[in-house]
């Protein structure tokens, strides 16, 4: 039975696309058939983060409008053959997404894959609602920062109101993915702690992704961080989160960067 997951947040720039790519790749590495779907019509970026930007021919809108077959628009990952990407359109706007068209595409993807991971656009408008509409599970990506937590609270409200599951009297499964976390700063009282965010949002924790230079390096190189450097701190955190998503019980720890003596000496941040 396929699972449809939406990666959402309300606020932009918190790590939705990075997390979609990293979790998608981690799930695919364990042998599952995974498709990552970019719902950010007009501002697509999942293709770039996945390193497939030069292979895009058809996109989600073409499929929704019947101009291309689903199989023509899907891009198979060159590193893992169980991972595919359905890119968003860069030239159209969100109005090109019709509810019926999206429903059909998601239903077709459910037939072909074990996991359908939808990368939501920021905001609470049509695009975000379309991305969450047919999801079974929502991953709410949040930074330990006031504006991100507030927007996540808003998105949780929308998930309980505007999804198909909620409208049919069910409850959509919601998980918190805390990203850009700095355990040191949290311990010093400079940053909201995991417990603070969990208490405020009161949804279960899927994982804590530590702030890391590896995340930018991975997007620079066009590779999910879980593929580029699987032993790095953020990759280990994403791999653990993917295991929890599959239902495994994995203790939540914040992985630390393994730094050598020289790294510690010169790698210290200025701010």
């Amino acid at each position, binding site marked *: 039975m396929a699972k449809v997951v939406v990666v959402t947040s309300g606020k932009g720039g918190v790590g939705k696309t990075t997390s979609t790519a990293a979790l998608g790749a981690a799930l695919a590495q364990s042998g599952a058939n995974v498709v990552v779907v970019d719902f950010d019509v007009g501002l697509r970026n999942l293709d770039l983060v996945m390193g497939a930007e030069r292979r895009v021919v058809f996109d989600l809108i073409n499929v929704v409008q019947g101009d291309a077959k689903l199989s023509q628009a899907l891009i198979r990952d060159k590193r893992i053959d169980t991972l595919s990407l359905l890119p968003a359109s860069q030239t159209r706007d969100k109005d090109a997404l019709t509810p019926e068209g999206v429903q059909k595409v998601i239903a077709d993807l459910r037939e072909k894959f074990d996991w359908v991971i939808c990368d939501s656009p920021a905001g609470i408008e049509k695009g975000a609602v379309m991305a969450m509409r047919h999801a079974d599970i929502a991953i709410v990506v949040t930074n330990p920062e006031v504006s991100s937590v507030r927007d996540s*609270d808003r998105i949780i409200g929308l998930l309980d109101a505007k999804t198909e599951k909620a409208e049919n009297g069910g409850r959509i499964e919601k998980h918190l993915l805390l990203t850009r976390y700095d355990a040191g700063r949290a311990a010093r*009282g400079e940053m909201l702690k995991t417990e603070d965010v969990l208490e405020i949002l009161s949804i279960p924790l899927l994982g804590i992704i530590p702030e890391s230079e590896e995340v930018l390096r991975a997007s620079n190189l066009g590779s999910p961080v879980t593929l580029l450097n699987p032993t790095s701190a953020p990759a280990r955190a994403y791999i653990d989160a993917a295991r929890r998503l599959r239902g495994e019980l994995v203790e939540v720890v914040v992985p630390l960067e393994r730094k050598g003596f020289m790294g510690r000496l010169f790698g210290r941040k200025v701010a």
Partner: protein
Amino acid sequence: MNLIALFRRRSSAPVARERLQVLLAHERALTGRSDLLATLQDEILAVIAKHFTVDRDKVQIKLDRGEKVSTLEIDVEVPSLTGLKVAARA
């Protein structure tokens, strides 16, 4: 910067946590009722209008959210006293 200031500067997270808790408690209560203040304004205006004429724009409503107590400030600008008497008699 003295030591106390240094300490205060560091512990900003508890302030963030408290601000969020207060804010979200109110925002959740108002979800789906974003027009609460507009509704209040209409209803209060209707009550006042039974006794004298007031301009809709002259009724201002403000809500100040506190952790334990919130205050609702209603500011009604009524016509001058003579005008009021006339209106009240009418």
